[in-house]
């Protein structure tokens, strides 16, 4: 898994690629918690368009990110979910708790 960060005004955009699993999800968790807890970024957007696979440890990292965002009053947005990733979130019954958009334009809109 690769994580590349971009910054747009007060928004951090993480472009994620590869697989999110037991080996790589700690890296994602750490990046998300840093943005919310340490840097207090008002909005973090996760571009999942290049993620091929995600397991329950990846879902758990997203849930931790979401909880951290709520703790500090920030927004946590996902976009670019392919069918495989969307199915995993649906299987977890957690798809409705996330703010999900189709593309980056919608995700960074005021």
């Amino acid at each position: 898994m690769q994580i590349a960060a971009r910054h747009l005004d007060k928004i951090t955009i993480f472009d994620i690629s590869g697989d999110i699993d037991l080996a790589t999800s700690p890296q994602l968790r750490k990046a998300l918690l840093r943005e919310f807890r340490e840097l207090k970024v008002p909005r973090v957007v996760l571009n999942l368009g290049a993620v091929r696979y995600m397991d329950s440890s990846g879902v758990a990292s997203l849930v931790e990110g979401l909880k951290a965002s709520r703790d500090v009053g920030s927004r946590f947005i996902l976009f670019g979910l392919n069918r495989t990733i969307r199915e995993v979130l649906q299987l977890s019954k957690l798809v409705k708790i996330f703010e999900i958009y189709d593309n980056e334009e919608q995700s960074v809109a005021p």
Partner: protein
Amino acid sequence: MSRSSLLLRIELQSNPEMLCVVRNALGQLAATLGFSEPECHAVVLAVDEALTNIIRHAYLGDAEQPIEASFRRIHLLHDGQGRDALEIVLEDRGVTVNPKKMCGRKLEDVRPGGLGLHFIRESMDTVEFSRRKGRNQLRLVKVLHVQGPRKGS
């Protein structure tokens, strides 16, 4: 069950870095057997989650312990009809797993963790835990609804 043929056997270390190797091999195997793309994803997810549970709970994160995975084509009765199926058996020598405690969590409880077993049960037709000769054994079965391997594979 009347027939059983070994398709693949993998011995791996309990290293999370090995998960992607197993996923890639299993995805190819499932597709070759004729499973649909969503079924291939389901089988791969189930085995990945099972291996993750072994690494985290049976071996407590120790990355150098042995895991054996065998993949067999079997024939069984499913809904009164004879069907081919993929049988996957994962074995480890870690701490004893108590099946009664392997219940996952309520999905409405929004918190990290506890989803792996739910994913396994949703993805497979049979999920059986046992302890034999000092080993934990997890048997997973996915029934093949299209008979025979995909042509051209």
